[in-house]
């Protein structure tokens, strides 16, 4: 009975591992293809030029914590672009006053009759200097990230919205690439285009996305604990297999579903192994051990694919071979 159970279990695990391997290989191929497209585009003179910047993009940042973060976001070369920073001066009033002084911000009227309903009375600041016109500050009591993003959507000047957390930063290529993908002729127009945050997080749910403002307003704005994910579930869009943003702060716990799945699959055979050893059935213990090895080797192979993608994506990546190998092993153990 237990042998049959183990046999069925082994078939299921190996089947799942093969499926994951195929999915990772497809994702890696798509990332590399998108990267090659990016290289082709960057060789074109018209790409990212002023002639292409007809579409404006508003980036809404919830809870920025330092001036340097804001400056980094303002440095994009894209022409029609604004950064809406939502702050809470009751938490850190000095940041707001420093920003107001530095960028000559003045308080302006907040449009109350917007498309979305906003709680509270937010204060809106714009710069009196034309060169800082792309920076907009909102001071409001922080309730939730979704509320902050909705507030940004209400005052956004442009029709494309990119909601970001304080630790997410767009890459220099992000805006022209996103806008270009938006204008690619497709039979069905997308309400959003999502992109990866890290090149090697193949199935990560923590994606960034550019939303159509009209679509966001139509669905009633962002809501819930994971507002971006919820919005993406409500709308029709497509996914870009390319990292267009990066996370600067390391998260304590990853919510990568692939990692969680592999960890679960690794834990179950291990438990089986120990149970089998306890009852002195070597054949069963051996089978369970082989399954553990199979899971680890799959993780190692996936890490190798991730390493290949990582090295291909980063042109300036000139790492020592021993460091690369160590990184590979560490990564595979983490996945395992």
């Amino acid at each position, binding site marked *: 009975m237990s042998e049959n159970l183990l046999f069925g279990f082994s078939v299921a695990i190996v089947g799942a591992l093969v499926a994951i391997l195929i999915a990772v290989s497809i994702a890696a191929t798509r990332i590399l293809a998108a990267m*090659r497209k990016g290289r082709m585009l960057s060789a074109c003179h018209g790409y990212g030029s002023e002639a292409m910047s007809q579409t*404006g993009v508003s980036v809404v940042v919830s809870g920025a914590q330092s001036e340097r973060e804001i400056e980094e976001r303002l440095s994009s070369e894209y022409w029609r672009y604004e950064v809406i920073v939502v702050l809470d001066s009751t938490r850190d009033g000095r940041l707001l006053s420093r920003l107001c002084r530095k960028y000559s911000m003045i308080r302006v*009227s907040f449009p109350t009759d917007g498309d979305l309903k906003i709680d509270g009375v937010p204060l809106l600041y714009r710069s009196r200097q034309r060169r800082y016109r792309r920076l907009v500050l909102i001071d409001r009591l922080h309730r939730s990230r979704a509320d902050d993003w909705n507030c940004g959507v209400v005052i956004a000047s442009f029709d494309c919205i990119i909601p970001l957390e304080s630790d997410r930063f767009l890459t220099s290529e992000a805006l022209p690439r996103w806008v270009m993908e938006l204008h690619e002729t497709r039979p069905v127009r997308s309400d959003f285009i999502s992109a990866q945050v890290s090149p090697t997080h193949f199935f990560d749910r923590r994606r960034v996305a550019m939303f159509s403002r009209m679509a966001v307003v139509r669905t009633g704005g962002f809501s819930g604990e994971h507002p971006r994910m919820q919005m993406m579930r409500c709308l029709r869009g497509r996914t870009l297999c390319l990292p267009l943003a990066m996370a600067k702060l390391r998260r304590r716990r990853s919510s990568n579903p692939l990692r969680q799945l592999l960890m679960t699959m690794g834990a179950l055979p291990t438990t089986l192994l120990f149970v089998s050893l306890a009852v002195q059935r070597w054949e069963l213990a051996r089978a369970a051990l082989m399954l553990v090895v199979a899971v680890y080797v799959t993780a190692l192979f996936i890490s190798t694919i991730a390493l290949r993608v990582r090295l291909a994506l980063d042109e300036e990546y000139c790492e020592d071979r021993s460091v690369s190998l160590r990184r590979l092993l560490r990564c595979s153990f983490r996945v395992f």
Partner: protein
Amino acid sequence: MVDWVGIYSVVLLVGSILMTAMVLVYTRMRACRTRVKQSLERCYLSILNRHLLEGGDLSSGFPLIDRRYSRLILATIVARLGAVTYGYDRSVLAAVVRRYALDRLLMQQASFSFGMRRVQWLHTFAMIDSAEGVYRRTLRRFGRSRNRYMALCMTLAALNHNPERSIAILAERRMPLSTFDLSEVLMMLKRGLIPVAYQPLLRSEYKNVRMLGLCIVRYFGVTEAEDDIVATISSSDSEVASSALFTLCALRLRLDRNEVRHASQRMNEDERRAWYRHLAAEGYSSRAIAKVLPANEQPQLREYVEQTVASYKRCLTN
């Protein structure tokens, strides 16, 4: 079953080791190749610059040019240089292309490669002055592709080859020109390859040609084209009409016209909101925008316009 799992593990383990080794070797080779490429690029660029500035024959030649890889680098440099040589004698670059048969080489390279690499080689091909025979063969081979990037490369190659037929080439193009396509065509125009005659473009009956005309007018700030832009607003194609409105606004021209009001009326509520928001962001006053509003505009949209414009002005209650 245990055996199968064992075989699976061994195969993957060997695969991982081989793949890691390949990745590391590939990275090392790529670093070496990049260094060689950079030095060759610097060398070829200085030789070409000298010839462009001082003239003279190319008998001194280019180092290591007998290698295919070096000739591909030279082709890329010629294409890149051709894109930024304003007013220089382009025959020098054409002579280099003819002497080393770079056009034929690029066509072969495009035939051997796939996907975006092929597009990259075709784009380089489109930027150089190719011989008639090679151009015809390339057009025959890739001209009917449904890939939009390859189609763009072929359009660019055709514009480069026959600049006097530019309007006809754009009119004959079946695929609509996207923003990126327009900016690429505009870059050719900036190099002086296509004549900047906006009037025939704006008055054309073809969508692609009109879109290019509007793009030219917007990019070069041709305010003299006001009448043609206003006439284009009445176009039945919503994309052309919207682009014309955007152009009128980008050139900061007067908006209180019947054509603009009719265009606003044709939009749905969401589009009208976006249009008013755009006007407010561009700095138009609420009085100027009020003149654009259709007579039967909803009161809440009128209020929205007022509030949006006010959100760009200092708050006096502060």
